[in-house]
């Protein structure tokens, strides 16, 4: 029984990799081969699909746009969440519990509910089709999440650390930036990872708030899928490329993730 335990994760990972394998293998096939019949691996290996993506600006700009607003959103969310999480973990103030719950309710809000009002609201502000619009809109669910994660981490740092620093004559901001932030680096890493992840994978709001200039790659894909008919190979290649940034990020934070949840109140 114990000896066969490794089978469970192995089978599960196999199940996870099958559709990904299919996507990647399809991205190296020509449209003719895909539609011509079932082949388990590419018979006529081609890089045509990737060449198209890297040479056509409407394609590769999609990746750049996505990365820009995702990074903007991650930086913004974590930056404002840091002091807030500190306050929630250290101070008691009027309405703190209600405020915390209200923040979390925004994490529960269905994006579909906000799609139309966001479109009108950001259009009225003149922010439609800008990176800022998407970065701000994604704050709706990323800030609550970042506060939630960071609060857990900060609560696990003993309060004596703050007191000792103040006794040693540190001013608040110097203490916060020089001592406290480095102490909670792991938590910041985890929070940033989750903000990156949820902003990167979200499509509905990003699509609603952009048309040309800031169009995310995910939206480029859906529009191409409907306009040019059945270019499955191209679609598969674009999909494969969207996996890469996530895979890179996850590789860097792999050790923090498990630790992060164990420490955090998450």
């Amino acid at each position: 029984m114990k000896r066969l335990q490794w089978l469970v994760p192995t089978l599960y990972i196999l199940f996870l990799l099958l559709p990904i394998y299919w996507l990647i293998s399809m991205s190296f096939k020509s449209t003719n081969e895909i539609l011509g019949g079932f082949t388990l691996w590419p018979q006529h290996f081609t890089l045509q699909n990737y060449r198209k993506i890297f040479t056509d600006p409407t394609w590769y700009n999609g990746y750049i746009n996505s990365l820009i607003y995702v990074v903007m959103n991650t930086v913004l969310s974590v930056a404002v969440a840091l002091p807030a999480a500190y306050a929630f973990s250290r101070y008691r103030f009027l309405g703190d519990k209600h405020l915390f719950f209200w923040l979390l309710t925004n994490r529960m809000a269905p994006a579909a509910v906000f799609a139309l009002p966001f479109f009108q609201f950001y259009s009225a502000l003149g922010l439609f089709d800008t990176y800022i619009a998407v970065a701000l809109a994604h704050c709706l669910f990323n800030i609550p999440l970042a506060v939630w994660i960071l609060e857990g981490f900060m609560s696990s740092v003993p309060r004596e650390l703050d007191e000792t620093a103040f006794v040693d004559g540190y001013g608040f901001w110097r203490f916060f930036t020089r001592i406290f932030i480095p102490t909670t680096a792991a938590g910041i890493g985890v929070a940033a990872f989750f903000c990156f992840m949820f902003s990167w994978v979200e499509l509905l709001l990003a699509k609603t708030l952009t048309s040309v200039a800031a169009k995310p790659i995910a939206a480029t894909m859906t529009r191409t899928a409907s306009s040019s008919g059945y270019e499955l190979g191209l679609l598969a290649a674009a999909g494969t490329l969207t996996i890469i940034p996530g895979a890179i990020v996850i590789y860097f934070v792999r050790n923090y993730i498990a630790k992060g949840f164990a420490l955090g109140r998450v």
Partner: protein
Amino acid sequence: MKSKTENQKGWLFVLPVVLLVAFNAIIPLMTVVNYSVQETFGDNRFFFEGLKWFVQVLHSERFHASLGRQLAFTGIILAIEVPLGVAIALAMPRKGPWVSVCLVLMALPLLIPWNVVGAMWNIFALPDIGMLGKTLNSWGIDYNYTRQPFSAWATLIAMDVWHWTSLVVLLCYAGLSAIPDAYYQAARIDGASSWAVFRYIQLPKMKRVLTIAILLRFMDSFNIYTEPFVLTGGGPGNSTTLLSIDLVKVALGQFDLGPAAAMSIIYFLIILLLSWIFYTLMVQGEEQ
């Protein structure tokens, strides 16, 4: 743990967060509330209608049907993903080089954009040229997710299990790796069965992260839009039209602002209520 200090300056610290979230939440939400009580004929003139749309939505069979499908979907995926996630987390190695490999590979589906997940399963399950569809059909199973509601549902659930079980695994694994070795040693000396170890050591330690996992999965599965939209588009017929898909159809497809807004509010309130019930139940369970 020392108790928190009373300090109203806390408000200054949370102010940026409150402003940013309020900017995004309150103004658009007010727009929705505003639409939900008015009628428009598309010429930018609005007439007050009171609660007419709410009554209409609550009595519409279409809404009941999508709500029913939504509850069924959420119930099924929770019933599969939570036990499966716990089982996988228990079976994962605790030390050694395989831990990183497992974590990275398992987290992979979480970082794929949702429409790519939908598109990936779409081409994976195509009955004639997709790997899954072709295999099933060659085994003599009649499978076609664009025609048969049952196949569509099975594909939808398989996709969600594929996409999100890893979240449960990662959270549970984090909870498990926080258990000190001494606990297991003590259990071994007592001759505890593996069920007893699970019931009295591992499960209590996982309770908190499991609460989070269930809450997150509940909220996100109730909000799901992109993946089923890309995979089946709500079809065949209306068989996989979940709440979000129905809502977007009404709001952006038919541009019925009033009913769509009323539906949004009812939808949001349902999630809020169910999340709150979950939360209170589980927090109570934790305190006992």
